[in-house]
């Protein structure tokens, strides 16, 4: 292969295209031969060839990049395989899984963090998304511009470069967010008290979650003993393990545009006549929302809940950009996928990493199955 990376890529891409065309043709011809041997009509033969020929890129890619890797990683998850091994890996049975579930404190931290994002982050994110969708659904001029503005963070927000602006804004001393909090709380003392109360509640909750992670609640006692925060206290966003989860939650809320669009589609599907009939009967807009819109929205809420839950397992870019190697902060904020990445690529323990990825996959499968089971129960599809 040529040393120049650009020419290397061009050559590899050209060879890949030739490879795909060749194997697609082979697969199509093979399928056609089978159909011919079974006595299919010429038209059927032609369609079989075309079907397999056109679908082949996906079929081949599935085998090379999904099926075989999945099989190998299942095997490796029962071994002590490392990238540096020149000999065959040793079979260790369930040892990786047992260690992961019973002894691995980092993995336990990632589970507790996921729980935090699910219990505290997701409702906030979905609430804001629903609020914005309801506001946009009022159908007034300029709705399109607002919709764009609310969706823009989703397009930009997962870019590491853009995430860095949050690192700048969340700086404890000189960041704009804390500056604004500081100037408001000094000029309006009442708001200052609210901010301090919020800081207190927040730290107690986070100390509790850190307590579950660490297995002892010393920090929680300390926070409660310290008592009501002093007048000049501000949130320590990217500085203290007590706060490190909050920026991630903020970013979740900031990127709620996808959920908002789903809710908006749901609101659009609500028959106008229902609303009008209720209005004629004298229902207030508050009643109309809770009795008509909300039940009809439940499938969309449920969908957003499941997708949101799965994506909290996979939060990666924000943690990498905000914390990266910052030791006490990383374990207090990591998601499961971040832990997988950290574990696999710091020590190149492929066996252990494979076990983690299988556990994550099983969790996601379980969540998805629960979704299919439960949605018939409390989600209203049949009001129409």
């Amino acid at each position: 292969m040529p040393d120049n990376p650009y020419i290397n890529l061009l050559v590899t891409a050209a060879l890949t295209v030739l490879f795909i065309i060749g194997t697609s043709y082979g697969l199509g011809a093979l399928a056609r031969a089978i159909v011919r041997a079974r006595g299919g009509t010429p038209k059927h033969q032609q369609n079989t060839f075309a079907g397999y020929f056109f679908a082949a890129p996906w079929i081949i890619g599935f085998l090379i990049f999904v099926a075989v890797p999945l099989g190998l990683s299942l095997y490796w998850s029962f071994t002590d395989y490392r990238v540096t091994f020149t000999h065959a890996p040793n079979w260790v049975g369930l040892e990786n899984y047992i260690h992961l579930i019973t002894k691995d404190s980092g993995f336990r931290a990632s589970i507790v963090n996921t729980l935090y994002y699910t219990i505290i982050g997701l409702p906030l994110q979905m609430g804001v998304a629903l609020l914005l969708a309801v506001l946009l659904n009022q159908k007034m001029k300029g709705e399109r511009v607002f919709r764009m503005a609310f969706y823009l963070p989703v397009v930009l927000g997962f870019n590491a470069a853009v995430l860095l602006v949050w690192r700048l804004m969340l700086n404890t001393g000189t960041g704009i967010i804390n500056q604004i909090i500081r100037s408001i709380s000094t000029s309006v003392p009442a708001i200052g008290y609210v901010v301090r109360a919020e800081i207190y509640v927040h730290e107690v909750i986070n100390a509790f979650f850190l307590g579950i992670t660490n297995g002892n609640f010393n920090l929680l006692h300390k926070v409660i003993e310290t008592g009501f925060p002093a007048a000049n206290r501000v949130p320590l966003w990217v500085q203290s393990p007590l706060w490190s989860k909050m920026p991630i939650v903020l970013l979740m809320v900031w990127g709620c545009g996808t959920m908002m669009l789903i809710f908006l589609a749901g609101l659009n599907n609500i028959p106008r006549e229902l609303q009008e009939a209720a209005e004629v009967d004298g229902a207030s807009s508050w009643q109309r929302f809770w009795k008509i819109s909300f039940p009809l929205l439940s499938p969309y809420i449920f969908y957003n809940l499941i997708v949101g839950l799965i994506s909290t397992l996979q939060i990666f870019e924000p943690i990498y950009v905000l914390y990266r190697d910052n030791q006490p902060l990383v374990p207090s904020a990591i998601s499961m996928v971040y832990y997988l990445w950290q574990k696999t690529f710091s020590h190149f323990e492929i066996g252990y990493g494979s076990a983690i990825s299988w556990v994550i996959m099983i969790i996601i499968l379980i969540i998805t199955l629960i979704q299919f089971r439960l949605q018939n129960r409390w989600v209203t599809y049949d009001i129409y």
Partner: protein
Amino acid sequence: MKRNWQIVKSIVLYILLTAATIMMCFPLFWMISSSLKTISETNSPGIVWIPAQPSLQAYLDLLQNPTFLRVYFNSVFTTTLAIVGTLISIAAVAYAFSRVEWPGRDIVFFVMLSTMMIPPQALIVPQYVLFNKINWVGTFNPIVIPGYFAGGASMVFLLRQSMSQIPKELDESAFVDGASHFQIWWNIILPLVRAPLATVSTFLFVGLWNNLLGPLMYLQSVGLYTLPVYTSTLYNINQTVQPWPTIMAAAVLTTVPLIIVFFFAQRYILEGVVVTGMKG
């Protein structure tokens, strides 16, 4: 009375929406404003909304920095190559699933839909071993080539849905005229699904341009870095003073293509999200 109430209501609505817009777009404003500041302004204890004397120094530094230019080129180069290959292969596979009757189609389609449940990260470990075996670590190949195999089941699904809606008579009459499947695909079907193709390419662009995990794992030298990886190295936790104006200028330059694409393709994106329920 009712009329007044309507006016008050719409005023309140606009105020709320404007406030939300300001909050959602504030990071963008702050990014641009900070890129025009000096280092001492970005680290000052007082609020500097807009720098008194906007300085383009950070941009000049970046544009004269050969590493940054190379990194920018890397991003453009890999993204372009990946989009072209992925788009064509996705269009071919969607054609097979929507316009051709072949034995086994429903089974293969079902398997493809099931793969949407596999989190991509579950595959990073074995794929890394695979790419390590064939010496692709330290090249652009692992972040571009997998897409050539119709990477992205949800995108295939989106395109299949649009292709299914085209009347069957179109290709049947073309068949009678002696056209081949390839000709029908290229000359008849593809021109009719231009809008969905635009949606798919926009999604692909956003995903590839923002991709961090892949490049982080496989591009192991600065010369190969793409923009997200390079920009995140500008922020170094061990430095006492971060060069914020430079970092923010790099962020602005990274964002510009995204904003341009979003601006022109927003109609497709906003519709596509609802069809596939996918993240941008």
